């Protein structure tokens, strides 16, 4: 442990001085979420592609549609306005995968959520039971069934809100008992399993209540199982035993009858896979069932299920039943029925025929809500997000406000601002800037045509022109960013050979050989010429277990071999940044292979990991950037039903391994990724299915990062941008998040943590170029947040500051306090931003605001000091501010600009002073006149004088009031326009700017001279005080936070005024 404290500030008497304190020990760190979370985090989305929606519930309220949307792995979102805006409502809960949402029909404030998606694709997340809110989603209570893992549907009794049924398929990856149909009659305090499956892999897949008789319950049971290498819906084959079946109860679940061909004419014969059911709300005798079987089809009963008739069995009715078995009947028309599938399909003849209804939507539909008040109004969810139709379901609006995107991987480049690259579940691969003037809109995200997206990198040889990315099964391409041409460069198989590429096949770029590219099948492939040629540099590194290579039989009753189950593959690659010949490879079947000679020889080191069960999926290998012998590995055993993190480190080339993250350390969730910091080898970041965890002591202690309400969402990949020191977080369910500048974490040690307050260093601060962007996009879009444009001040507090002033000052190099900022009060790391601006100039009061003069120019780059005063103790640290390296002007030119801006700033001050004196004299004249009787000669002279004084004022400022566009421009307005021109470009001003300043100064001087003459010749003779002064000016800067004003003032008119006045 050799963390060095380079920048800690320690109290030395009443003033704290910067001091390099040397090495500090890691031994006793008391860290928790609060320690780190004040770093903050920003979500850059995107909602452009959005992500898989698994469940929808909605109702109409006072003419508006209230929507609850469940994301496959991104929580619950609520809209009170039919989908114009959404707010996440489940961010404080420990799981984010949503299987079902139900609104209590008798009290819509009561909302039930079943966690754990039931659309059981390979990448599906997990839940932990049932939650209920009694306040419309603001707060939630966990109601139990913690081992159910996933819930397909919840129905609340139409009249008794305490009674509800929960349909739980149960665990996907392992046998379990907490599956089947559960019922509560006490609002979830207790549960009764009213229908159990035939075996420990059978649970409930669908549920319907008779709308006219809530004791009439229809439940579909489903036998299913996924393993890393196979999946079955139903039994292991088309004919094998399956626990699936369809059951009916007429007594609220006490007794059940199974549907059979013998008892129910027309019902298909066993075995079944997944069954989806729907009772027509407007005519409960009409029942639909889509049954996966040896002859999968839609069946309809017109007599409440007694007899059935086969209806549609088109491809979109029966394709991939595990992913799409959902039927939705129009609440007003029993013959209008929708079926989710790759495309949404619809029937208006009771299921006899169907046609495509998905329009231009993404596809892979999972749920649909039909507005009972207007059945042409539909809201549906698919793998590409949420969609709304107003024409009955053939054309769709995309909701571009749900950033529930499911990234698998992320990479960054070295542009400034850097760009973020990544691929997503069923949503190809995208690039976006990490910041953009006006915010990172959906339009800033640039897609590349593909299938599912995974790894994506800029080509190191031509990073501005080419990217590597892949679709499922290792379909890597090299694509031109400008022409969008793609070249398939996937290594090909030899004679009678099969290359086994994982669904999420790893691509790796060497950090010691620029441009060297690796991809893994069962072999490790290397290209040194951008994919023109490949060499295999390993034998089969997997177990090559034939039992795990039977994917053509995968699917159960319906074959489903999409590459999602491809197994015995390489899953993770990491070449050492210290020694390019050292390459680690992890496989999905449990091998951790190492070569130290560039691939000539390989050693499987997994046998040296004590306590790790065999065949554990190696989700990540990470060669240390500090030491060739050190590497980290994470193992994901959730495919065996083990949700715990298994994270290890070796410091001797794999000869021995030490576990560094487990549940005993408070880490939750199966591990996806571990990353070492690029500067501090003891600073580690761990992504699990339930969030981001940080350790500052090499893994001895961990704490969950909860900054910015970062949810317990799956963190699948992490990237550190080494220039900006940002941590970029790829979540599978909530898009990309960025922690700007992790430098402070490198300086948190026992001394800093123990101190009452410690100022912590940041990356070098810059005055970023001021770009003007953004436009009115309405309220229905997501916009990602930018990196701070201000200087950031970071400190750690041992406890929350509650009493007395916490004073934060900025001091210039001359020791003058130039700004005082509101300090942040929280326990742990705090961050405060300083806009780096001079105070705005004092400005004469006019009819309207002088827009540009409401803000000050930025101070010059240079050395400043941060001074924090807490409880009488003073803490100081230097604050170095530099130019944006992108600046096209020199520091001298910047100084010329600042000088010019401050010159006009000074003219404003002069003008304000003049205005105060003019108005002061005018008021003095009025006051004196008021004391004189009518007809008095002096009074008459004073009245004339008042007019003359006012005439001078009218030369300075526009005075016509009333709010119309007067077009009136006087000295102040001209000065404001010049000030804007100079302030908004920080390079050297043009000679015409300076000439204009000369001209305006001359005009101002003339008014000053006129006023001086007026005082001498007219005011003094009338006995008026020549020093009279009123407050007819002021300063103020509404630039940065118009939105915030609303919370104090609710005055959009002020905001719109500012917007119009602000020069662009």
């Amino acid at each position: 442990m050799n963390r060095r404290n380079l920048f800690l500030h320690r109290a030395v008497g009443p003033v704290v001085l910067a001091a390099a304190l040397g090495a500090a020990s890691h031994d006793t760190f008391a860290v928790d979420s609060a320690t780190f979370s004040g770093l903050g985090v920003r979500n850059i989305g995107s909602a452009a592609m959005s992500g898989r929606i698994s469940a929808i519930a909605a109702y109409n309220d006072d003419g508006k549609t209230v929507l609850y949307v469940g994301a496959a792995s991104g929580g619950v979102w609520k809209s009170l306005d039919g989908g114009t805006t959404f707010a996440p409502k489940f961010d404080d809960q420990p799981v984010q995968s949503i299987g079902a949402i139900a609104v209590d029909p008798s009290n819509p404030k009561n909302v039930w959520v079943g966690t754990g998606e039931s659309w059981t694709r390979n990448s599906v997340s997990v839940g932990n039971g049932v939650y209920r809110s009694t306040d419309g989603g603001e707060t939630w209570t966990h109601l139990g069934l913690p081992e159910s893992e996933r819930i397909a549907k919840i129905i609340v009794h139409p009249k008794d809100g305490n009674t509800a049924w929960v349909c739980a398929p149960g665990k996907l990856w392992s046998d379990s008992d907490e599956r089947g149909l559960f019922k509560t009659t006490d609002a979830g305090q207790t549960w009764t399993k009213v229908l159990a499956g035939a075996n420990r892999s059978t649970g409930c897949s669908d549920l319907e209540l008779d709308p006219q008789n809530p004791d009439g319950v229809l439940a579909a049971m489903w036998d299913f199982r996924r393993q890393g290498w196979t999946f079955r819906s139903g039994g292991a084959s088309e004919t094998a035993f399956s626990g699936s079946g369809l059951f009916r109860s007429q007594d609220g679940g006490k007794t059940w009858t199974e549907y059979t061909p013998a008892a129910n004419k027309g019902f298909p014969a066993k075995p079944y896979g997944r069954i989806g059911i729907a009772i027509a709300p407007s005519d409960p005798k009409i029942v639909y069932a889509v049954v996966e079987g040896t002859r999968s089809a839609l069946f309809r009963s017109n007599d409440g299920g007694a007899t059935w008739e086969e209806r549609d069995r088109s491809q979109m009715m029966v394709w991939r039943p595990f992913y799409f078995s959902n039927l939705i009947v129009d609440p007003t028309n029993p013959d209008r029925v929708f079926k989710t599938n790759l495309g949404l399909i619809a029937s208006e003849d009771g299921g006899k025929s169907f046609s495509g209804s998905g329009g231009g939507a993404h596809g892979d539909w999972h749920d649909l809500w039909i507005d009972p008040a207007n059945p042409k109004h539909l809201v549906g969810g698919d793998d590409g997000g949420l969609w709304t139709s107003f024409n009955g379901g053939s054309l769709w609006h995309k909701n571009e406000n749900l950033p529930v995107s499911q990234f698998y991987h992320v990479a960054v480049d070295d542009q400034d601002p850097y760009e973020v690259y990544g691929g997503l579940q069923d949503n190809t691969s995208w690039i976006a800037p990490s910041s953009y003037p006006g915010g990172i809109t959906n339009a800033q995200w640039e897609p590349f045509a593909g299938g599912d997206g995974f790894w994506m990198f800029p080509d190191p040889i031509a990073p501005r022109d080419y990217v590597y990315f892949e679709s499922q099964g290792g379909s890597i391409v090299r694509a031109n960013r400008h022409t969008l041409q793609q070249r398939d460069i996937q290594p090909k198989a030899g004679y009678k050979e099969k290359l086994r590429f994982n669904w999420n096949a790893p691509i790796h770029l060497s950090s010691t050989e620029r441009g060297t590219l690796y991809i893994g099948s069962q072999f490790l492939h290397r290209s040194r010429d951008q994919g023109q040629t490949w060499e295999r540099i390993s034998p089969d590194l997997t177990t090559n277990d034939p039992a795990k290579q039977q994917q053509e039989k995968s699917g159960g009753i319906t074959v489903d071999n999409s590459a999602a189950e491809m197994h015995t593959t390489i899953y993770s690659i990491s070449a050492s940044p210290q020694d390019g010949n050292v390459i680690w490879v992890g496989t999905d079947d449990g091998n951790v292979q190492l070569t130290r000679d560039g691939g000539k020889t390989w050693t499987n080191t997994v046998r040296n990991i004590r306590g790790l069960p065999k065949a554990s999926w190696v989700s990540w290998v990470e060669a240390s950037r500090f030491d060739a012998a050190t590497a980290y590995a994470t193992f994901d055993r959730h495919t065996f039903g083990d949700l715990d993190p298994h994270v290890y480190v070796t410091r001797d080339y794999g000869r021995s391994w030490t576990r560094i993250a487990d549940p005993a350390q408070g880490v939750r969730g199966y591990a996806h990724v571990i990353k070492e910091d690029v500067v501090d080898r003891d600073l580690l970041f761990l992504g699990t299915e339930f969030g981001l965890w940080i350790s500052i002591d090499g893994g001895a202690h961990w704490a969950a990062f909860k900054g910015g309400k970062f949810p317990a969402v799956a963190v699948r990949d992490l990237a550190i941008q080494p220039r900006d020191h940002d941590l970029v977080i790829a979540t599978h369910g909530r898009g990309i998040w960025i922690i700007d500048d992790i430098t402070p974490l490198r300086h948190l040690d026992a001394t800093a943590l123990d101190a009452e307050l410690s100022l912590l260093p940041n990356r070098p601060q810059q005055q970023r170029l001021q770009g003007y962007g953004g436009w009115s996009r309405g309220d229905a879009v997501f916009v990602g947040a930018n990196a701070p444009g201000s200087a950031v001040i970071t400190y750690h507090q041992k406890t929350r500051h509650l009493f007395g002033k916490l004073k934060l000052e900025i001091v210039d190099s001359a020791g003058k306090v130039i700004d005082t900022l509101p300090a942040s009060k929280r326990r742990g790391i705090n961050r405060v931003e300083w806009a780096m601006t001079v105070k705005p100039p004092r400005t004469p009061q006019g009819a309207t605001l002088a827009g540009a003069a409401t803000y000050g120019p930025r101070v010059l780059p240079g050395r400043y000091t941060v001074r924090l005063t807490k409880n009488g103790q003073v803490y100081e640290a230097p604050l170095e501010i530099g130019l944006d390296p992108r600046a096209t002007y020199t520091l001298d030119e910047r100084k010329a600009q600042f000088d010019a801006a401050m010159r006009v700033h000074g003219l404003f001050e002069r003008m304000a002073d003049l205005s105060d004196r003019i108005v002061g004299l005018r008021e003095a004249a009025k006051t004196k006149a008021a004391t004189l009787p009518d007809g008095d000669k002096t009074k008459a002279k004073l009245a004339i004088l008042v007019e003359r004084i006012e005439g001078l004022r009218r030369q300075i400022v526009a005075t016509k009031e009333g709010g119309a566009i007067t077009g009136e421009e006087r000295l102040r307005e001209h000065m404001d326009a010049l000030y804007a021109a100079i302030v908004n470009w920080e390079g050297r001003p043009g000679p015409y700017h300076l000439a204009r300043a000369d001209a305006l100064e001359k005009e101002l001087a003339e008014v000053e001279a006129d006023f001086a003459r007026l005082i001498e010749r007219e005011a003094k003779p009338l006995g008026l005080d020549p020093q009279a002064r009123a407050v007819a000016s002021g300063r103020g800067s509404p630039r940065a936070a118009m939105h915030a004003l609303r919370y104090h003032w609710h005055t959009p008119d002020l905001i719109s005024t500012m917007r119009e006045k602000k020069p662009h």
Partner: protein
Amino acid sequence: MRKWGILGGLLVALPCWVSAMNADELIAKNIEARGGLDAIRAIHSLERGGRLQAGGFEADVAEFKRPGKVRSEFSIQGMTQVRAYDGQDAWTISPFGGRKDPQKLSADDIKDLGIEADLEGPLVDYAKKGHKVEYLGTEDIDGTAAHKLRVTYANGNEAVYYFDPDYFLEIRIVSKSWYRGSAFEGETDLGDYERVNGVYLPFSVASGAKGSAQKSTVTYDRTEANGDLADSLFAFPQGAKP
């Protein structure tokens, strides 16, 4: 301005045995922490001034209160925006675009202003005022396991108050106000408490949209209790056309 003292000699860190907290106990502790009912009620007017800051933005603010009356002022470049309520009329002057005449505010604004105008605070005698309260347990607020109290105001708006677990002063209020049937959610962080006439008041008030990292902070630098505040400060200006 009153001098403040850390803990003021009155507040004592309470042990965390208050597991069986209910709403009334929490409110009682809060009132005691603020200085007690007598001290709170001994304040019959309040005038505060300070600065509002958000990023590079800055403005002077002032606030005047009497029971049931409130006036807020916000000044830039010598122009002052006013927002006031006298128990009957709510009105504003918004001068920045060239208009200086007062305008009436809506019934929805009155709901918010009515709560702001409650000088002793809405939690004092909440039941008599028709508010409903519900204790919601604790929630982590930036590293503090804060007690959480939902208040449903008599006018239909809502707020969730978060109290420091040791000192029982408010550290955050999340408000939900309804404007033309749509919810408007704000989040206000309170801190830098100092005593004024025996009552602890926050001298730092940071507000923004719920969940937003961007907040505007008002830092008060002067507070005067029990000065004479004329009715005309709060009433719709005489002679003006509504």
